[in-house]
Structure formats: structure tokens, C-alpha cells
């Protein structure tokens, strides 16, 4: 009986040991805001793992991104295929192996939405958005912000987004997007360079 009880409770015990709620959320918010204010640029490699629940299949992509304040982002996949998204203020350029497409963000609501999410996630300021309710967790290694969508179009796309910060709150360490059907996309950032000089020409695609 004791064994059975232990087996039943073990996952819960493990989980509670893994992440617990943050008590002083105001202090954590301040740390994230300070991090965001003091970060002028981020350059990082990333790996993206898509877990398709129906197929029990993981799809891994790799790439590199560069962000420069205020609204310059170059998000580039190198494998399994080449794919580039460049956000240069109000202009979005998408280049795949076949085509280059340019969009004006103001004329395309979907791109505006994607830009807001990408930039605010990279900066870690997404918790300020009224489109999400945020719950704050921590363990020995990370702070975890669980973002729960509050508006319909976000709810349709995501069940939640988890943002992980290292304990020094220097930058976003990883990001996890859980879709309504439990498919998960995990982005892991590594080889990060913070506040290094960035040549703005990389945000122009010819």
C-alpha cells in the first residue's frame, strides 16, 4: 500500500521539487525589466525541437538569431532547410529556398502579432502583454514564466508559452510553446553574446 502511494505521489513530488512558485514576483519582474533595459543586442545560436504528439516524432531545426534594439531581428534557420526572417522596424522579409517575400507589418495583422511575440520573447518582456496571464516559477537553475493566453486568437494557437531565464536573469535561456493539441516547440538558446556591436546591414535582405 505504501509502495502504491509512493508510486502515485512520486511524480507530484518530483514536479514540486522541479519548479515551485516564486514568492517575490515583484522582485523578479524588476530583474527582468532591468535585464531588458540593459540589453541593447543579443546574438545567439538556437536549436528548435518540435514534438508532434500524434506522430510521436521530434523534428529538430538549427539556426542563429540576432536582435538589436529597438526592432531589428534576424532569425535564420540553417538546417534542415535554409529559411530567413528579417524584421526591420515595420518591414518583414521572409526568404526560403525558393522565394523572397516582403511585407509591411502595418498592413498584415498576422505578422504584427508574430513580430510582437518574437521580439518580446527575445527581450523577455512578453509578461507585460495583456494577452497573457503570467505565473512565475523557479527551481535551482531557472526562473520559469508560464504565459497563459487570455485572448481568443492566442488561445486558438497556444495552450501556454513557457519562458526560462537563468537565475542571474541575464537573458532568455529557452522557450517552450505548447499548442492546444499538446504539440510542443522547444527553443534552446546557446553561444549567446549580449550587447556586442551589431552591423545593421544584416537586417537588410537584397
Amino acid at each position, binding site marked *: 500500500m505504501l509502495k502504491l502511494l509512493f508510486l502515485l505521489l512520486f511524480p507530484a513530488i518530483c514536479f514540486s521539487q522541479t519548479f515551485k512558485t516564486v514568492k517575490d514576483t515583484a522582485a523578479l519582474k524588476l530583474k527582468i525589466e532591468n535585464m531588458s533595459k540593459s540589453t541593447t543586442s543579443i546574438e545567439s545560436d538556437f536549436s528548435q525541437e518540435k514534438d*508532434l504528439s*500524434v506522430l510521436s*516524432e521530434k523534428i529538430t531545426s538549427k539556426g542563429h538569431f540576432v536582435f538589436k534594439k529597438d526592432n531589428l531581428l534576424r532569425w535564420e534557420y540553417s538546417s534542415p532547410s535554409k529559411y530567413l526572417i528579417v524584421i526591420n522596424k515595420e518591414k518583414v522579409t521572409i526568404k526560403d*529556398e*525558393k*522565394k523572397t517575400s516582403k511585407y509591411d507589418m502595418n498592413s498584415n495583422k498576422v505578422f504584427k502579432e508574430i513580430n510582437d511575440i518574437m521580439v518580446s520573447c527575445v527581450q523577455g518582456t512578453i509578461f507585460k502583454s495583456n494577452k497573457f496571464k503570467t505565473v512565475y516559477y523557479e527551481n535551482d537553475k531557472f526562473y520559469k514564466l508560464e504565459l497563459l493566453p487570455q485572448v481568443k486568437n492566442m488561445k486558438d494557437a497556444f495552450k501556454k508559452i513557457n519562458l526560462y531565464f537563468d537565475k542571474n536573469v541575464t537573458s532568455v535561456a529557452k522557450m517552450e510553446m505548447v499548442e492546444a493539441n499538446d504539440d510542443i516547440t522547444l527553443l534552446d538558446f546557446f553561444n549567446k553574446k549580449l550587447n556586442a556591436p551589431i552591423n545593421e546591414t544584416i537586417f537588410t535582405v537584397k
Partner: protein
Amino acid sequence: MRRLTKQYLLLSSILCLGFVSCRIHKYKNAKNCQLVVMDEQMFQPVLTSRAAIKYNASIDVLKNHLSGMIVVKQTDSVTTHIVFITELGMKMFDFEVKPYEVNAVYVFEPLNKPLLINALKRNFYHLFLFKVFYTEAQRCKTAKTPLFYLIARPGSDDRFFTTDSLGLTTQELFNGRKKSSKIEYVFNKATNTYSQIKCVQYGFAKIKIELNHIEN
């Protein structure tokens, strides 16, 4: 001047009609047709194992261009899923193929237009060669075409398959006399897979699909 224009239009129409008719009649007047049962000896299936098969994919519908990855996997003895995700990891659709039906399990809301989804379901069903093997077909030849196979079923497009020494090269679908889709296959002998599949759906809503196999 006006008369010249009329003559020009008439001539163009005749030429167009002739051209289209030639295309339509490529498989007509077949001789020595034999009833056969399609099997893997005739050409290799696209989906050969229960493991997931991945393709870099680009889909052009009207003026929209989508790119990403198609993952195809048999999930049980009668069910196969065809899932399209963009590079950013957003799932665009998940089609579930059963022996006699294709269901859209999930479709990204902005794409969710019945005409478009039905066209995509139909084209993916055909290009992955569902309902081809272990069914009856006619094996024929004409003066204009080498050996081809025809699968004709009431209420469905006629499916014409042409092969070369390596295997399947094209699948053309006709709705009556009208060509509805053309699918081209490139077989890679070294990897024993179809390395590229290109599909064009003709008509009002033109759709182009290009798949390039990703080696595991």
C-alpha cells in the same frame, strides 16, 4: 484591323484547342490493354515503411506561398498522418488518411477554407499513392506513350501512371477529358526513395506543391 484580330483570335483558339486535345488524348487509343493488379514490382510506393518520412515542402496556392516540412507517418495499420509545419514550428494542417477517406484533424485557422483544404487533401492523397497498390488497373500502350497504367473508378478522376526503368515518373489525373492534376516523381536509386515530388493542380484554383526528401 478588326477582321485581322478576329482571325487571330480564331486561329489562337484552334491552336489552343488542338494543343489541349493533344494533351488530353495522350492516353487515348490505347492498344493491347491488360487487366493487372498493381504491386510494388511495377513501381515503388512512396511510403515504404512505418517510420516517419520527411520532406522540405513548398506550397503555392493562388498568390500565397508557404514553406516548411511535411511529415508522413503511419500511426496504425490503417491510419497515416500527413502533417505540414512551417520552419517556425507552427502546424498548418494535419490530415488523417484512412483507406477510403481523408480527414482534416487540424487546420490552421487562416488556411481553413473548404475548397482549399479539399484540394490539398485530394492532391496529397494522390501524390503519396494512396489506393494504388493491390487494386485493379489497365496496363496499356499507345503510339504516343510508352507503357502506362490506368486506374479508373466511378466517381473519381482517372489516374494514369507512367514509368521508366527506375520507376514511376508521372501520375496524371483526368476528370473526364480535362486534366485536373499532374504529379512528377524523381526516384533516387542510391537512396531507394523518391527524392522529389512535384504536383500541379490545374483549373481556377491553381495549386503547386513541391516536396524534397530529407534524408534521416
